[in-house]
């Protein structure tokens, strides 16, 4: 753990420096514009100061985003429509529901594919085809269709999350459930083990490392799905809604704070799965 702190901090430091430099570079034209109109002459230090404190910068400086996040998390009640925590929760709930549904669907399909020849031949091509359709194209349709039958709110977004997250789970679990080699399967046969015993005692535990890897990818995909699901309907709540509203009104600071929040959310969710993975595999003697 400690050994990784120094490299991580230096990377973060480097990124911050690059970010500030990019803010100067991208926001300078607007600063010059303003200066010309008011007849001022910009020194280097006033230029830099201006590019780091504009109200609607092309690229907000890190501290501006930081301040916005602070304002909208710590200083706002979480029930407030302007609280970023409230919006994060809206997105997170859809993410988690979609993730659970996607994982369930993925595991079910994988079991079917491994145990049923017909499913093996017929399902996998559809699973792959489903992922070649751009989610941005299909998301509005899912939302509209579900709205038409009276389903709105959490579930349509969760469906899109599920649509994105079941795929890595299917692929990973099929591989994991098939990971026992012929000898291990023969061994089960010599003990006259039933199909379900072979599944619970051999295939399932053998697939655990694959499952966790898939879950991490699935969780990240699920978050993307929930955010994408908030875009087409002009939803009023959620990180996706914040992104959309921010871009309507040129509120770049708001966009970036929503983006960072989404990234932090993704990192924590994947991190939590990583911890569960480590504990589980350790207890199974596999790590």
């Amino acid at each position, binding site marked *: 753990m400690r050994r990784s702190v120094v490299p991580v901090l230096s990377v973060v430091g480097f990124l911050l420096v690059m970010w500030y430099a990019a803010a100067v570079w991208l926001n300078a034209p607007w600063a010059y514009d303003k200066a010309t109109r008011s007849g001022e002459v910009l020194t280097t230090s006033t230029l830099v100061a201006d590019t780091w404190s504009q109200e609607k910068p092309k690229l907000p400086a890190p501290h501006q985003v930081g301040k916005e996040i602070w304002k909208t998390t710590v200083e706002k009640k979480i029930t407030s429509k302007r609280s970023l925590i409230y919006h994060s929760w809206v997105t997170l709930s859809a993410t988690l529901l979609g993730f659970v549904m996607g994982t369930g669907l993925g595991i079910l399909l994988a079991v079917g594919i491994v145990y049923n020849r017909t499913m093996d031949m017929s399902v996998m091509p559809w699973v792959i085809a489903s992922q070649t359709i751009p989610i941005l194209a299909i998301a509005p349709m899912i939302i509209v269709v579900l709205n038409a039958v009276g389903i709105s709110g959490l579930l349509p977004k969760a469906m899109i999350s599920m649509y994105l997250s079941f795929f890595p789970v299917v692929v990973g679990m099929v591989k994991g459930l098939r990971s026992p080699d012929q*000898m*291990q399967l*023969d*061994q*089960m*046969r*010599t*003990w*006259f*083990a039933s199909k379900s*015993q072979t599944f619970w*005692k*051999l295939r399932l*535990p*053998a697939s*655990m490392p694959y499952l966790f890897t898939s879950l991490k990818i699935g969780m990240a995909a699920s978050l993307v799905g929930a955010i994408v699901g908030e875009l087409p309907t002009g939803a009023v709540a959620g990180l996706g809604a914040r992104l959309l509203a921010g871009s309507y009104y040129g509120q770049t600071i708001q966009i970036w704070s929503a983006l960072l929040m989404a990234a932090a959310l993704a990192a924590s969710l994947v991190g939590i799965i990583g911890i569960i993975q480590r504990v589980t595999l350790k207890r*199974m*003697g*596999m790590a």
Partner: protein
Amino acid sequence: MTEKQSVISARNLDLTFQTNDGPVHALKDVNLEIKDGDFVSFIGPSGCGKTTFLRVMADLEQPTGGTVTVNGVSPEEARRQRAYGYVFQAAGLYPWRTIGGNIRLPLEIMGVPKSEQAERVNRVLELVELAGFEKKFPWQLSGGMQQRASIARALSFDADILLMDEPFGALDEIVRDHLNEQLLHLWERTGKTIAFVTHSIPEAVYLSTKIVVMSPRPGRITDVIDSPLPKDRPLDIRDTPEFLEVAHRVREGLRAGHQDD
């Protein structure tokens, strides 16, 4: 003395694999009688069908001709009755189970009561001299210890027949000598019938009451040697003239099989 009962009996056994490169005649007209309490070694060059023969006895492979009976019934029925323990070349322990857990696995599958499981695990661990390693994971054990654990696992449900396919093939000679000695003790104490595949002439002669010499293309039995060696065999029996004579005969048998090519 009463006539010993036949445990495994093969009559005119034939097995041809259909492969993409045409048929492979793995076993041709194999006849063999293994009696209760025998220790039978199968020896022969690579590809002569030793593994295939063992797998037929275990109902892991279906013969294309002839018949095999195990304990007087078909291999499938014998497998259903859990009549044999099979030891593969690789230990094949589950990495997510402890040594104890691995040995318990067949017992769980066979529905042995929990209280009895613990007792049996202890007994077989003792038998292979691994007492005290029950809570260790496989990766914490050496290759030889893992192989002993896999033998313990095959012994745990107390089948009368033990089928072993080159169980010590991957181990160095010193460990192998030691395990051979242990295996003989175990066989003496338990009175099991053992079918044992090996590539090593000394190993075959040291362990067996009966040595089956095989040769390839098509896989067949070329010689069956009943060992004149006494049941009690210290390691240095391998320097006695009787031992060397049997070894010589095995070598001759192997050479004869090769000259047919």
